[in-house]
């Protein structure tokens, strides 16, 4: 552990979550981030969440599985040479498929390989598991940007993760789309708890209001627990940071949005992972590749 990490830990020693931090702080976590519709800031939140978790001493692998609009690389100012497709079909070594991002976060771009993951031959599956094997030692946190909507892709990753965070914007369309996504997660992936992050709202009261609306519909019509895990305030720094291709938590660590990400990270880690889901790195990939459900 280097010096900054140690300082980081010490600043945390005096609040009520101290026990929780030591208890859940270093367990293996697989978190999928999704949203009902595009453009609500999902990739930006995912990227910055990865960096914030890394700053807190976690070893993070970020998988960009957003098929249509993968842009975690752009947000971090990276240009990956290889992606998952190269790993699957061109025998490129896993290490060459990873890009080194800021704060020690590694990025694995899905590229078009993501779509192919959902229908691999069993030999390819074993090859992939073998290739990924050495990574288990390196990371304790797997963060997956699943893309938006209710496609097989989203279900594929969300179904194998321990926790699913749905990013919701304040506009009514975002609400209905978030509901549809949660419905699919509950009815088709057997997910029993969904965490919600409200993005781009002016006050906590506004975030609560959006969450309350979503919760009133899900609690009436679906059998899934929906919890508010955090909210990110509208913040001019976010846009500024995107323009310069520096993640906003790096460029403006004290900005309101960055503080929102810190609260979100704490709130996710504070909860024990949803029970009965894959617990380790290998387990995650095995669960993922074993799910025949998504073979079309």
């Amino acid at each position: 552990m280097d010096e900054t990490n140690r300082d980081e830990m010490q600043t945390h020693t005096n609040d009520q979550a101290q026990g929780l931090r030591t208890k859940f702080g270093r367990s293996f976590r697989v978190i999928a981030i999704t949203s009902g519709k595009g453009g609500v800031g999902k990739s930006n939140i995912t990227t910055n969440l990865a960096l914030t978790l890394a700053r807190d001493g976690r070893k993070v692998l970020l998988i960009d599985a957003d098929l249509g609009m993968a842009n975690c690389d752009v947000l971090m100012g990276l240009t990956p040479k290889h992606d998952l497709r190269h790993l699957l079909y061109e025998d490129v070594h896993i290490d060459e498929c990873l890009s080194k991002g800021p704060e020690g976060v590694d990025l694995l771009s899905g590229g078009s390989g993501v779509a192919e993951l959902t229908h691999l031959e069993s030999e390819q599956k074993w090859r992939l598991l073998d290739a990924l094997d050495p990574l288990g030692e390196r990371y304790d946190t797997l963060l997956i940007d699943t893309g938006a909507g209710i496609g097989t892709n989203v279900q594929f990753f969300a179904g194998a993760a321990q926790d699913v965070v749905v990013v919701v914007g304040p506009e009514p369309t975002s609400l209905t789309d978030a509901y549809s996504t949660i419905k699919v997660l509950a009815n088709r992936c057997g997910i029993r708890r969904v965490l919600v992050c409200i993005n781009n709202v002016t006050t906590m009261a506004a975030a609560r209001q959006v969450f309350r609306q979503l919760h009133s519909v899900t609690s009436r019509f679906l059998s899934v627990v929906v919890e508010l895990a955090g909210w990110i305030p509208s913040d001019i720094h976010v846009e500024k940071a995107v323009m310069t291709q520096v993640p906003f938590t790096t460029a403006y660590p004290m900005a309101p949005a960055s503080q929102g990400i810190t609260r979100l990270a704490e709130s996710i880690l504070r909860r024990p992972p949803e029970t009965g889901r894959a617990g380790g790195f290998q387990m995650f990939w095995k669960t993922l590749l074993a799910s025949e459900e998504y073979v079309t």
Partner: protein
Amino acid sequence: MNMQTFRAATMREAMNMVKAELGAEAVLLSTRELGSGRVEIVAASDPQPKTSVPDFSRIARNTSPTAVSPEILNSMLTELQEMRMEIKQLRSEKSVARRSRQDWDRMVDELRDLASVMGIHGAEDAQAAPIITRLVRGGVEACLARTLVEQASQNARTASDTLWGVKQSLEDALSPAPAIWDSSSRSVAALIGPTGVGKTTTLAKIAAQATFYHGKKVALVAADTYRIGGTEQVKTYAELLGIPWMVAENRNALAGALKRFERADLVLVDTSGHSPWQDSGLAYLDTLTSGLPVERHLCVMANTDGADVSRMVERYRSGGVKSLVVTKTDEARRMGSMLSSVWGTDLQIAHLTTGQNVPEDITVPNAQKLTQAVLG
């Protein structure tokens, strides 16, 4: 999910539209008045909430259409209807069970009240017993109820005289303290009390009331650096109200904050909650405010047991308490513990809080109404 906006002249009319369009299951997302007397409701429903459509499509894909004979379809339909009936029956049984459970709880409560009265009084005279019972049902500790009635019945000839006497002593005891925002000179008020009684929310309500309705210059100090998001909350409220705030993690920082807010009419200090039964919590408060001109107002929850509340007040009083704030009165079924909190002390209640809305849900108590609430 089907989400729609409805506008109509009256709420009832709009509700009828919601039901007609979205069904009785619909959830109301928001309601507001549009001015000129019209109202707007946003509502949503999901016509096919839990049916897993994909499963059917898979069946359809794997089996040719001719494979499903009308007989099979019919038998499935009958089965489905039977299952529906069964579910309906189960549901109604469940609600019956729930209702009788509530009745049962109420009976147990009443029996317990009666038992405590009987246990203490045995052969109490017929006039006093009903009044004591009434007080105990209102949540007053049995021994306190007995004392009250005994005192009142000394000069009383009839039961109604006794009741009148009891009411008088309740009204005396429950007369309010001046509102925290009412002080004519500059004041520094710290809200203290056990964890989770609503100190921060109460602080925000007082700050908002003082700012908006009483024209005071208010500043906030967040001394709760222990709880996650403790200072964050104070900050959010301060920003919403547009008033200055500071964090004070210890006594010296608090002294600095008070100096900086020298020109404010009212400085409100949010402290962290502690167990009243542990000396360390009380010591923390004493250290925090030692030598500073800080008035301490104790927050207690309305639904705390009467005996507990009076001991709690006793513990906090040793370090000085200016007045009481009784919180979450909307969550309490009985108000008797309020009496316990002030009985036998020179303390008075400055505020009651009645819900979660900031700043609406805070009031200055009215002795008659409180008396009525205690007597039920």
